[in-house]
């Protein structure tokens, strides 16, 4: 069997916070993505999800841990050797306005990755640029335009087309639809769906939008303060969330249907500071199911069958299930 396209283990990232203090952004995260698999990385602000996206694409250095891409350890690969790999490992960011050079036409922007990663000549590049534009359903007239002349949805299509240009094996999508209107968002999701079916590219979908993650992913990893608290197949995890944090998070979402009764679990207080992380379970300070032992050691992941696992010591006595 071929190795997973991405295998990251014990990822740690700390940022300096001045006066010798440190922000503990990512605290020992394991993440594996199979070939062609779509994995969702969910969590609230400060959970470390975007940081993980930048760590696995080697855009920022790791504090500790290991990243293997396509069977190869890239943890300490020098940038010179990293560069050719980037053709297969792409990332798309939330803000398409900031991701494109304002002084470069859309056509040139689409050709740029081909210039960097292929030896196609100018004519062939232009042709491939047009193909890419058609593939993401951009009007061909937009190739001669500049970014400010396009709408947000069109710009995000340009960013996706650029990521696709070099036929990657994994695309990291960091909140790709969060800045877009509802109907425009649906168009982008449909495009991603089509691209996955056509090219078999694997996807790491980073988002705080649980409904979108439920729609587009095969598997979900839930983060809280830089720790994986739960992961599992999307359908199973949404149906039977085991970690009290996942239950809280899912219960807070508002389905667009007035007939769905909300049964909300409320977390106590606010998210603790990532500068002074409490020992033990990071969610213990806000968890309605917490017992003193939760504040002792970091809880190990408990297997729940079928690739589903959650890091909560209360699973043993059934106390993890929040009641209404």
């Amino acid at each position: 069997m071929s190795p997973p396209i991405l295998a990251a283990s014990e990822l740690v990232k700390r940022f300096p916070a001045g006066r010798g203090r440190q922000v503990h952004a990512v605290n020992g995260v394991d993440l594996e993505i199979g070939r062609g698999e779509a994995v969702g990385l969910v969590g609230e602000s400060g959970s470390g999800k975007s940081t993980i996206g930048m760590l696995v694409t080697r855009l920022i250095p790791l504090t500790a841990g290991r990243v293997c891409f396509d069977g190869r350890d890239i943890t300490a690969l020098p940038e010179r050797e990293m560069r050719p790999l980037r053709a297969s490992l792409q990332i798309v960011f939330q803000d398409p306005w900031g991701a494109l050079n304002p002084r470069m036409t859309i056509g040139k922007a689409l050709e740029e990755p081909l210039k960097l990663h292929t030896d196609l000549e100018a004519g062939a590049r232009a042709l491939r640029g047009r193909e890419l534009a058609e593939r993401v359903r951009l009007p061909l007239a937009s190739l001669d335009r500049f970014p400010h002349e396009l709408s947000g949805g069109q710009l995000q299509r340009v960013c996706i087309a650029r990521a696709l240009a070099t036929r990657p094996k994994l695309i990291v999508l960091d909140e790709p639809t969060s800045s877009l209107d509802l109907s425009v968002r649906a168009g982008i999701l449909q495009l991603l769906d089509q691209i996955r079916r056509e090219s078999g590219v694997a996807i790491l979908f980073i988002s705080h939008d649980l409904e979108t993650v439920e729609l587009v992913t095969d598997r979900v990893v839930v983060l809280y303060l830089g720790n994986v608290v739960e992961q599992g197949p999307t359908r199973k995890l949404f149906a039977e969330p085991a970690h009290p944090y996942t239950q809280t998070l899912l219960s807070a979402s508002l389905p667009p249907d007035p007939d769905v009764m909300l049964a909300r679990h409320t977390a106590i207080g606010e998210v603790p500071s990532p500068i002074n992380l409490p020992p033990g379970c990071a969610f213990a300070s806000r968890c309605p199911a917490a017992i003193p032992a939760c504040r002792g050691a970091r809880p190990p992941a408990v297997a729940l069958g079928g690739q589903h696992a959650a890091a909560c010591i209360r699973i043993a006595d059934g106390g993890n299930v929040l009641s209404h």
Partner: protein
Amino acid sequence: MSLLTVEDLHVHFVTRGLDNRVRVARALNGVSFEIEEGEVLGVVGETGAGKSLTALALLGMLRPPAVVAAGRIRFEGRELAALDSGAPDHIRGTRLTLIPQSPHTSLDPLSRIGEQLVRMQREHGRVSRADALRRARGMLDEVHIPAPEQRLKAWPHQLSGGMAQRVLIAMALINRPRLVIADEPTTGLDVTVQAAVLDTLRELVRAHAMSALIITHDLGIVAHYCDRVAVMFAGSIIEQGPTRAVFRGQRHPYTRALVASTPKRIAERGYGQVGGTPPDLYALPAGCLYRDRCAMAAEICVTTPPVVRFEHAHAARCHFSAQLPPP
């Protein structure tokens, strides 16, 4: 009688191009709606549909190049005169208030929270400092800010996003308004915080028998926090009605497309017809403004603007609203 009645409101942006020719963008094109006592109305629509502009017009906060070209606004039985004069009338700020978007840019970074709450009261009425401070403390308690006594002395930068949004709710409610306008009150907040903030807002609206107008692009917020909903497209309300009625059976193709774009509906029925751009506000076509994106568009949609058709309290601005197939 309704607390607020907006009738045929038109707002234009009047600018001059580089060639010195006057250009007019018709940003609001005849917006009409009412809000009853104690009612929560949700206004939804996509970027540029005119949601926030409607709120600014109600609050008299439009500044050139935006001008009210036509329309009437009646609030508590009185005509709100000189809609864009900018003159303080003390209705806005006391009887009719705003919870703005983006908490951190809406608070004064150089004043403590308590000071801002005191100022909000003394700006609009004769209140002693001590009384105002006492009320400020009570208001922070009402919006569920822990340790309100200490928070009065806090600076805005010391508050989390959720706390700052709660302070803004406190500021909007401290003069006991009859109608509060919340412009995307939870955009940018985490989901767990969003739910808690909206719960607090609803609790206070009910407790003080106020009305609220919630502007949002989130159909989930409308479904669970609004009694009635108005859907905007290209500067007009294309559908409005009781929330449950609108979610059960949309009478306008645009509202249908919006509901069909939610992940939940895509999961059930697959991707529907999506995309399209709103019409150019500088050169609005005759007929129906939605026709270029509409699968049902016919000859009449090109020639004749649709009028609002009512079916009980549920209204849609579409020639074919009665003939739409069941959703």
